[in-house]
């Protein structure tokens, strides 16, 4: 304890407090602007705090466009992406780590390609693939004639569920389990799938939590892909809908900032509640190499 209150350290603490405050300025700007009136924003006299706190800005902002639907779309896409990718990733990671089959390690190394290829580099062919999904969105069996999965939930979800990174993490995690676990399961007469469900899954809570947090953040925050794949207003996600406020010649900064606050809030709460998993997840992305 004595060490904590060393004068040099207190000095560093003070310095870091100032730095932290500076880092948070944009968030204060966002929050405070969202309560101001446009008149106050445009007045030559700048006040950091609003003269009058306009709580109605939030409801006004949400009435510009169909925000219930945008939130529903984002929540739905995020939930489905997280659930489907966690299922797919966990069984694949388990298989790569604990089962023996021909070509296993080669198949695993090939799958890592998904961790290296950034989605931006393949957006054109992925778009074309989605457009030509057979028998979807008016397409015939050869994937011609319709829109396929363009402007649909499937189009927003499908490209994001593979998740090589998740498979990589699950594999690393299951590699550390003792061999005796599999032998005990075998003695109990369990098949490999039963053993996974009955033994491995209950022991995997930390990694499920970490990946849920990471994948949910990534999907909720996604902008580029929804921008490309959605056409109609009814498919918009919240990130995309935020740009609606900019289309006017005079930007309504207070509305824009209150909408920004509202779409950021769920994730900030998630972050503050699950900070441990965020940090662990981020760390597991690299250090172990």
């Amino acid at each position, binding site marked *: 304890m004595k060490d904590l209150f060393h004068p040099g350290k207190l000095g560093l603490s003070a310095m870091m407090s100032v730095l932290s405050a500076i880092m948070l300025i944009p968030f204060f700007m966002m929050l405070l602007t969202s309560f101001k009136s446009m008149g106050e924003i445009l007045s030559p006299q700048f006040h950091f705090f609003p003269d009058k706190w306009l709580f109605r800005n939030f409801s006004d902002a949400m009435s510009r466009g169909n925000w219930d639907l945008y939130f529903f779309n984002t929540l739905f896409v995020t939930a489905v992406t997280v659930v489907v990718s966690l299922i797919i990733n966990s069984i694949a990671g388990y298989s790569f780590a604990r089962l023996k089959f021909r070509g296993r390690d080669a198949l695993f190394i090939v799958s890592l390609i998904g961790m290296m290829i950034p989605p931006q580099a393949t957006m054109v062919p992925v778009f074309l693939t989605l457009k030509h999904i057979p028998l979807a969105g008016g397409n015939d069996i050869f994937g011609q004639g319709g829109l396929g999965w363009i402007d649909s939930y499937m189009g927003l979800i499908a490209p994001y569920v593979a998740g090589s990174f998740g498979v990589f993490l699950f594999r690393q995690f299951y590699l550390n389990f003792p061999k005796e676990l599999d032998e005990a399961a075998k003695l109990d007469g369990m098949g490999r799938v039963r053993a996974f469900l009955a033994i491995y899954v209950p022991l995997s809570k930390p990694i499920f939590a970490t990946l849920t947090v990471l994948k949910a953040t990534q999907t909720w925050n996604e902008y*580029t892909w929804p921008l490309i794949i959605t056409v109609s207003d009814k498919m918009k996600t919240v990130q995309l809908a935020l*740009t609606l406020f900019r289309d006017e010649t005079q930007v309504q900064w207070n509305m824009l900032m209150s909408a920004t606050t509202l779409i950021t809030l769920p994730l900030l709460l998630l972050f503050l509640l699950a900070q441990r998993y965020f940090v662990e997840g981020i760390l597991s992305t690299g250090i172990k190499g």
Partner: protein
Amino acid sequence: MLKLSGDRVGYILIAPFYLFLAVFIVSPILMNLYLSFTDYDFQQMTFVGWDNYEKLLQDSFFLISLKNTFVYTLFTLIFTMGPGLLFAEILNAKLIGLKGFRASLFIPYVTSMVAVSMVWLWMYEPSHGIFNVLLDSLGLPKIKWLYDTKFALLSIIIMSVWKFIGYNMVIYLAGLQGIPRDLYESASVDGAGVWRKFRHITLPMLKPVTFFLVVTGLINNFNVFEQIQILTNGGPMNATTTIVHQIYNRAFNEFQLGYAASMAIVLLGIIALITVTNFKYGNQTYDN
């Protein structure tokens, strides 16, 4: 129930993952390569050989975007990693309020790029934004930030540094915590000062972490797009257009899909180069 052989269960369990991987990651790379030799506008596809690549070499927009992307990547990388390490070093001294500092620096990284860009768009606003209000109150001339060809890319770099610095710090902090304490203690006994300990213990021990941050940082920064699209849309006068911004515009605004694919191949080539370098020089550092 049918008893499946070990081999088959293994394949079945990786099948769903491999299906999505094949359709949405592996096959698009090959399609991209094929498309880059064609002219395609969603209607008609014609094979044009190397035409797209020849056009690329003379496309001044693409060349500017290459330059901008390099400048953006270089500066964002330097200014996130250097201060990231410095702050990690400070936080590693087990200060009071460590968790609060870590969270404050990390929150921008968790917030969406769209939200962050909207807030900075407002702060950069020329007549009422906070930056110009500050400059004005200090008696300095106002800057047009995102609307000034000289400042636009810099403004975007500043915002990105702010967003990614916490990520670099957290990774470095973990690396620092992995360095055995007794290394420093025996160095102290030998009379080494703070700077010598940093140079001869901290930096070498952090080499794998630094290497990881450089590689992932290069790849991520090379793909910069969202903040460009929202803050400047590549302007003013193409001062902030980047490779991915060019790909997006050619493909989805001008429907030159083949041409956009050839740009994507250049991008993939650069990324492959970074990755190969990673494998060649990186593995030895991961071993320790």
